[in-house]
């Protein structure tokens, strides 16, 4: 038989849990953001110490190394300028042809830089938190990427921070295309070992698909969340599923999900 104080505590804890489970979704979201707000000072402190370390490291770099890096960047900048001029000429031509055929204009991606402040501590979700929120124009389903490729999409938005669900999470499925063969599939959660955090599966490929390792994978554009052409990764291997009726490929992601410090959010 339970002692009286124990009984009271058990009832109290059970009551708290039952109430939390029955709260409406919006209230739970607000409650979560309020509680995770308690960690903001620590996240801020961690960010400041990270910057301070970077500054100290910067102060210790030799002048010669800096001059060499500056010259290399200048060379790269010159090359990029030339490529930009080429791209602009192609863009003008593209716009002219689109106008001639009365096609809709494709819009440029508007990107906003944000810092990753936390990762999901549990092992059964793949999610991060970033330091942009509703006041910065964030809203659910905005694509998140790095310069290397797609990372995920925004799943929850608070006033000053947002939650991003990463590729490989069971709740995120992305329509993908292999430009080399024109085939389409869906990016699913990973069946690879957890150490291979940068692997996802590309499912729903047809059984006679000619997908081969090394081919690039990018977003397809169907579904309305992710625009077409964002790089996702590269096919590593292909296996047959459903008794040969379909194929599944493992994809090595272009973006390194293990070392995400800063990400870009694609604004509408």
């Amino acid at each position, binding site marked *: 038989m339970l002692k009286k104080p*124990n009984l009271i505590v058990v009832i109290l804890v059970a009551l708290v849990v039952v109430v939390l*489970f029955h709260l409406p979704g919006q209230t739970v979201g607000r409650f979560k953001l309020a509680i*995770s707000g308690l960690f903001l000072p620590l996240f801020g402190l961690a960010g400041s110490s990270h910057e301070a370390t970077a500054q100290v490291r910067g102060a210790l770099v030799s002048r010669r190394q800096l001059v060499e890096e500056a010259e290399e960047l200048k060379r790269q900048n010159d090359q990029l300028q030339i490529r930009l001029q080429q791209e602009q000429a192609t863009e003008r031509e593209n716009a002219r042809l689109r106008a001639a055929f009365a096609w809709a204009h494709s819009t440029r991606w508007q990107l906003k830089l944000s810092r990753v402040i936390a990762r999901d501590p549990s092992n059964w979700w793949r999610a991060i938190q970033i330091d942009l929120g509703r006041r910065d124009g964030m809203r659910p389903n905005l694509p998140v990427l790095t310069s290397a490729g797609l990372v995920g999409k925004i799943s929850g938005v608070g006033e000053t921070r947002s939650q991003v669900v990463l590729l490989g999470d069971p709740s995120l499925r992305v329509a993908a295309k292999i430009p080399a063969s024109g085939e389409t599939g869906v990016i699913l959660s*990973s069946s690879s070992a957890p150490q291979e955090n940068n692997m996802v599966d590309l499912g729903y490929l047809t059984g006679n698909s000619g997908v081969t390792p090394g081919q690039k994978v990018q977003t397809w554009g169907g579904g309305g969340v992710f625009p077409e052409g964002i790089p996702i990764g590269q096919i590593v291997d292909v296996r047959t599923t459903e008794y040969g009726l379909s194929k599944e490929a493992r994809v090595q992601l272009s973006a390194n999900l*293990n070392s995400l410090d800063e990400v870009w959010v694609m604004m509408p």
Partner: protein
Amino acid sequence: MNWLHTTFILAAAYLAVFVEASWNLPRAILGAQIDVLPALMVYTALTNDIWVIAALAIGGGLCFDAVSANPLGISILPLFAIGFVIDGARELLLRESRHAQFMLGAAACALQPLATLFLMLNLGSAPLLNWHTLWQWLVMIVGGALATPLLFAMFDKLHQSFDYQPATQSSFRPDREIKRGRL
């Protein structure tokens, strides 16, 4: 000391959740993040009353779920159940033994994710589960088991620093003093 001790435990839970959310090294190397809350619950259940156990389960569980994609409150029941069971068997457990601490930490860290996943699946969530989850579970068990004796050692040090130390009694008794004369 009681309120101070409770504050230390809740602060440790808060810091543990922060470290788990911001320190990615275990995940990058081992493929799994180690959860210290069950280990902290073992310490709390062996040294504190049921109210502190409930405070840690609710406070720690809410903090963990708030920075995670978990449904809010899902971690509370498993944490509390671990604390409650250990609290009930406290008289039978060798709290001072490092081996007992290790084994209790391993058991708690094994049961907590299982119970959380069981609840989550029953609530309709679909977490990332495959055969590799077993490896993550193993890492969590070993990591949590190793953390438990460390937590005991750390809190014992805190005890020594902040608690009143027992007064040492001298073996000198005036009534047993041998009175010596001049010769």
